[in-house]
């Protein structure tokens, strides 16, 4: 029997993978992908809780759709920034991008 707990465990695992990717990866593109993983983990969580607790109302689903929309827009913007960064500096390695340093 599939319970809410199962979904939450998958969601948590997915989120942790994403978090690890954000912290450990050096490539800006991979970090972006990791952020997408974290967003999807959140979506999974939302939909699961919505279906298990109150399936009559679509609150959770609607928020998930919002997250997907905003995530798409954000990725579009972030990829554009990464592209410019590559054009200007010839790299997307965030170790080398430290202009905000003291």
């Amino acid at each position: 029997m599939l319970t809410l707990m199962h979904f939450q465990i998958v969601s948590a695992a997915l989120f942790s993978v994403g978090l690890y990717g954000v912290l450990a990866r050096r490539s800006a593109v991979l970090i972006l992908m990791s952020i997408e993983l974290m967003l999807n983990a959140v979506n999974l969580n939302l939909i699961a809780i919505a279906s298990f607790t109150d399936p009559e109302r679509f609150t959770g689903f609607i928020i998930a759709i919002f997250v997907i929309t905003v995530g798409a827009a954000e990725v579009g913007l972030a990829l554009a920034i990464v592209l410019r960064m590559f054009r200007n500096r010839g790299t997307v390695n965030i170790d080398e991008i430290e202009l905000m340093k003291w």
Partner: protein
Amino acid sequence: MIGMEYAWLIPVLSFVAFPLILLLGKFFPGKGSSISIGAMGAGFILFLFVMADLLSNGEDFFSYKWFDVGGVELTWGFIIDPLSVSILGLVTFVALMVQIYSVSYMKDDPRFNWYFGIQAFFAGSMLTLVLADNFLLLYIAWELVGLCSYLLIGFWYERKPAVEAAKKAFITTRLADVALLVGILLLFKQVGSFSMSETFEQAELLMAGANSALSSGTTLIAALLIFVGAMGKSAQVPFHVWLPDAMEGPTPVSALIHAATMVAAGIYLVARTFVIFEAAPDSLLIVAIVGLLTTLMAASMALVMTDLKQILAYSTISHLGLMMLSLGSFGYTAAIFHLMTHGFSKALLFLAAGSVMHGIGRTDIRQMGGLIKVMPLTALAFGIGAVSLGGIPIFAGFWSKDEILLSVLDHRHPIFMILVLVAVFLSALYMARAFFVAFMGELSDENREGHEAPALMAIPMILLSILAVTFGLLALEWTDSFHGIGSFIFVHEGHGFEFNLILGLGSAILAASAFIIAWLIYVKGSVPISPFKRTFAPIISMAERKYYLDSMYQGFIDRVVLVFSALVAKFDRVFVNDVAVNGVAESVKRSAFTLRHHVTGLMYNYAFVMVVGAIALAAAWWAVAVKG
């Protein structure tokens, strides 16, 4: 009919002239001088109307509300009484003469309109001071007068001595002004109002022994403090040091300062607040002593100076001392009368001295001599001024000086009388010396090219000469309604003309003999001067060194004031600046330099901190909301 309710216009006209000259002066004829002279001339005409009104309707005062603060109502207001109107006439007339004279005297000066602007402002301030009906307004005008004299003395500020003299004048008078302010506040504290009439009412109650808001101790202290203020402005010993130095200003300015504005303010103040002095009679004795000391010291210094303007400056101090002595001897009328006769004569003398400088470009009387041949009109004007101040009968100074002698004789110890007669003799002697050395005798070759004063300078001298000759006759009884000056200007009750024949004759003989002695010494040369010089050598050498007062003050400033200031400056630099201000800034800077290393610029560092923060927040929430 224009009456006394328009008197406030007199100073206001001059105040309005000041910005007008500075901003729009160049569009007017005479580069702005016409505005100032126009304002002053209108002021003089208004004075005539006010005087006519005063004579027919008696004295009055006007007061308008300014603002309320803490339950005290402050007012603008003016007094129209014989005292204020007399000084009004003196100031407007002398200022008008000086300004007309200045048009010619200052015509090549690059700051011509600034000069006339300040002249107008100066006259306006002095007129406000004279008309003010409350101590607050009087004090404001008092400070403005000090400021304007500072600006005019330092008018040629490219020259170092002028700057020094201006500073000296301002600081010296300012020191005395502090006493005046404290005195005014003391009176205010007990009376509860700045109004003069209310204060005088209380003082009169005190004098009558009735229940008064003023206590006799406070009245004495306040009177003395007011007198210290007057000593500063009227150059009484030991505050007199600024006046001789003030000669660095343009000569017409000296004429104005010495005759009508500035130094007259101190005498006017004591006369105005005379009731307060009377309520504390001990203060009048001090006034008399200071006046006597001043007149003697200044007269002896005037006798040994060789600069024409310096002689006149010390002569002014000496006569101011005489006026103070007169006030201190209950000679209220005599003091004000002498203020006016001296004002006309001294303005005349200064304008003549200015004409000499204009004509030959020298101020040392030893380089002059025989100037009567190249500038007869100037010589005549100077001569009239000299005999008037010297106290030769018929001329103005004689009458007022005689009134002073009379009040000293009536109210003070005989020793005062003897000393004041010495001062009278000396004052005739130094005037005679200045006149004979500068204008008589041999004309030297380099002075042969000197020229007479141009018309604009001559006319004021002529008009002032007429007054210096005739003004004293006001002392006499002329008609049934006019019983001499004493029936017009008085403090409690008027009195007709009083003349002590022996005293008048004595002082006239004294003055005449001084002139004759000076003539024998300096013109005829029949009396050698060296025995005198040997006999009085210590006094002469002290007088030549200005009784060491200037050096004492300089020494005090060098050894005490400057040392203390250096200490304060050190404290400011080390403690306030280095520790308190820079120290705080430095510590903030240091910690910032240390702490900035946390800004790595690396994205994953920031992300990691965010994660740690989120976990910490979650843990806290869990600990508080779920477990607790």
